[in-house]
């Protein structure tokens, strides 16, 4: 990777400074917690967005709050940037290492500290996997609601940094709605507690601000999450349609009628065919669009809602309607949707996942434009949506071994995100800006908003040491990107590597 990803030149850490830093860390960390030779560093060179790679100079793996405080104080004193990292499953390059900074791996913070059955809360360390919380709470008939599709591997600390969603967030909210308290360390090394176990906290909503801040304001060291009682009844309904428009109309009709499904997931034909081939879950492969609608609550409520939803769907041109007969079939139907990414991955050597959100009423316009571009660029697109909240995940299929195909894929992805902004949506619903969408931030926000974002970071991190260069572009970068736009994709400096 070249340093052209960043708008400012990146000067690598000098070897003497690197080794002096290693020696300083070794004063309070065991050998195995300070990684500094190539073979140990390589696993950290990218996150889930593996097209961006950079070997970090040093990786530290602390396991106590005091160690994190000392690390940050050292980095603050030496002006060394810090990239915090959970499991590295992020999809936007947010945990991409810097040539002049350390990676602060939080994997050793992997303990569930306490589950309070009566208060229905769990206190966990940031390196705990999302799914592990629900597994541990299951004995008490409780669970942690946000369920990003990477929940088997992603950590709760990373979920806070990205404000992760999941298939159930229309009804149960995002990470920010399900976290009560975060203990975090500032770049100055101070331990701060944001939020609390009450239902509100005095002063500014700093807990809200920390969510989705992509490791740029503070380093999370402990999280208290809210646990919910498992619903006593859950039903899943599958509906197939001859067009995406009809499926979209049915979704609008359900929500307009006053029913909030626990999950509402849609797929287009290429995604349906791929998922069925992968999971053999019983999806009708002749359908143009399909959605899964999950309803949960008390038995009476679910029975009442399922009959209403069936009527609404029948009034909106459904071609096939099926309610999962038992728990096994319900899980099988979900398996198809949850494995849509790897399923699409089998159709093509590579795929690129996009993450825009749009007001749902613009769904057919956006899909039509994507189809046109797909033909124009000669790149296939399969679509899965969180239909309830308008979050689109177009998967662009490409072959990274074909020269120029990744570049065209990224350009197409950028155009799709800009279209999301044009129709009143956003460039990222849940994957974060990271490194990947930093140019599109200049489309969504003006220079005054971007300046205010930098000012907010400055309130926490005046020397810009926490994950600098990510998530919020510099104004220079936006000026350059604007210039790129004027030239209709003819890059002014085609000789510069862009990743």
């Amino acid at each position, binding site marked *: 990777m070249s340093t052209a990803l960043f708008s400012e030149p990146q000067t690598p850490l000098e070897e003497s400074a690197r080794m002096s830093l290693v020696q300083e860390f070794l004063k309070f960390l065991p050998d195995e917690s300070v990684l500094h030779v190539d073979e140990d560093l390589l696993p950290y060179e990218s996150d889930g967005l593996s097209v961006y790679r950079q070997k970090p100079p040093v990786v530290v793996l602390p396991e106590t709050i005091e160690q994190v405080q000392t690390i940050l104080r050292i980095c603050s004193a030496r002006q060394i940037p810090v990239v915090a990292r959970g499991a590295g499953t992020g999809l936007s390059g947010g945990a991409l290492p810097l040539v002049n900074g350390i990676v602060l791996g939080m994997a050793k913070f992997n303990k569930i500290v306490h589950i309070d059955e009566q208060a*229905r809360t769990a206190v966990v360390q940031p390196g705990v996997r999302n799914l592990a919380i629900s597994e541990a709470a299951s004995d008490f008939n409780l669970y942690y609601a946000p369920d990003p599709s990477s929940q088997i591997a992603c950590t709760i600390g990373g979920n806070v940094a990205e404000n992760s969603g999941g298939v159930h967030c229309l009804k149960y909210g995002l990470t920010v709605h399900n976290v009560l308290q975060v203990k975090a360390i500032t770049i100055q090394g101070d331990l701060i507690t944001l939020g609390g176990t009450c*239902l509100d906290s005095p002063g500014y909503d700093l807990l*809200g601000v920390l969510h989705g801040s992509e490791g740029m304001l503070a380093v999370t060291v402990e999280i208290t999450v809210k646990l919910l009682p498992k619903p006593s009844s859950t039903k899943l309904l599958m509906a197939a349609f001859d067009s995406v428009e009809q499926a979209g109309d049915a979704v609008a009709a359900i929500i307009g009628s006053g029913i*909030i499904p626990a999950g509402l997931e849609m797929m287009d034909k290429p995604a349906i065919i791929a998922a069925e081939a992968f999971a053999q879950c019983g999806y009708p492969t002749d359908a143009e669009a399909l959605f899964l609608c999950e309803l949960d609550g008390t038995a009476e409520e679910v029975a009442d809602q399922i009959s209403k939803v069936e009527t609404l769907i029948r009034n909106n041109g459904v071609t096939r309607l099926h309610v999962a007969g038992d728990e096994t079939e319900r899980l099988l139907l979900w398996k198809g949707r949850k494995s849509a990414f790897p399923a699409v991955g089998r159709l093509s050597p590579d795929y690129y996942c996009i993450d825009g959100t749009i*007001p749902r009423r613009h769904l057919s316009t956006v899909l039509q434009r994507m189809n046109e571009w797909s033909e124009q660029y000669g790149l296939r697109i399969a679509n899965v949506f969180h239909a309830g909240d308008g979050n689109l995940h177009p998967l662009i299929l490409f072959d990274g071994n074909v020269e120029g195909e990744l570049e065209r894929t990224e350009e197409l992805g950028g155009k799709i995100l800009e279209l999301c902004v044009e129709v009143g949506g956003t460039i990222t619903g849940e994957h974060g800006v990271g490194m990947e969408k930093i140019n599109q931030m200049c489309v969504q926000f003006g220079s005054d*908003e971007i300046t205010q*974002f930098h000012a*907010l970071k400055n309130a926490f991190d005046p020397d810009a040491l926490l994950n600098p260069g990510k998530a919020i572009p510099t104004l220079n970068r936006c000026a350059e990107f604007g210039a790129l736009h004027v030239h209709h994709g003819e890059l002014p400096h085609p000789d510069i590597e862009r990743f």
Partner: protein
Amino acid sequence: MTSAEQNQDIGEQLQQQVAEAYSRGQPLNICGGSSKSFLGVGSNAHPIHTTEHRGIVSYEPTELVITARSGTLLSTLNRVLADQNQMLPFEPPAYSANATLGGTMACALSGPARPYAGAARDYALGCRIINGQAQSLRFGGEVMKNVAGYDVTRLMTGAMGTLGLILDFSLKVLPLPEYQLTLACPSSVEDALHKMQALGGKSQPVTAAAWIDGTLYTRLAGARSAVIASAATLDGDPLTDDPAISAQFWTDLREHQHKFFQQSAPLWRISVPPLTPPLEIKGDCLYDWAGMQRWLFSTDDAATIRSTAQSAGGHAQLFRADDQLKALVGVFHPPGDHLMNLHRNIKQEFDPAGLFNPSRLYADL
């Protein structure tokens, strides 16, 4: 009022007024409907009025999102939503017919549904503000999932206008429940606290729970079949057969119209973790939010009340009192040294000249 008067954008005029104040270094007191002007420490700063900046900008019921200007009356917003069988799920108190959306979000108060449905900040999707340098800025948006940029919308929610003047706000809304019923059950406060907490751990359509003067009140709301089935399994008798009377009970509680609130001592709002036993503070106490929000009329001294709440893991806010007492002891619980520094830094970055609502939240902001 003509429709043009109900729907007008004076954002540029407000921006001009802030620009003039910035050039003169003149502090401003942001005034909406003044329904919550009692909240926080008042000031003599020059008023800037938002009530004429009003109207619904967009509302798409099937997408559960509404955007309105800050001067829009809360009652107008509630009526427009109710026409589509929708509502603001956090049940914000109005306290007067003049309450506006801007003040609702700046104060971020939530009604009895709070423990079950969430707070004002949980429904905040996007906002347009004027910052302390008279720039008009837009953050967040009109979609439910949006992680582009820092969450300035939540930062504005509950900031008491100290970081910027809210021009408009986008909110997630939810369907009105089909049916509701309130159960009343005689109970000791200790028993009620345990019952209220346990109820939230079951898959039941509970949407409010409060203990007032020897009675536990529980609101069930949702599908009619679910409410009736649930009521049959719980202690207590229906307060009334009329859903409108049931609703009025909770409205009175939310709006401080319930007879409990006809007292003259200083009124404190105490926020505590679940299952916190009754606090050792003298005075008359009402328990809302399943016991986690307590309204207390007490003449005990502020330091005792604050330290008792803090020892229980909570905090205390001097909600209604005379100006002299508010100025003397402060209104909002102090957040601790490190967080107070962050508050000062953030205030500096949004409002470097200290124009907006000086001292309303904390004395040095």
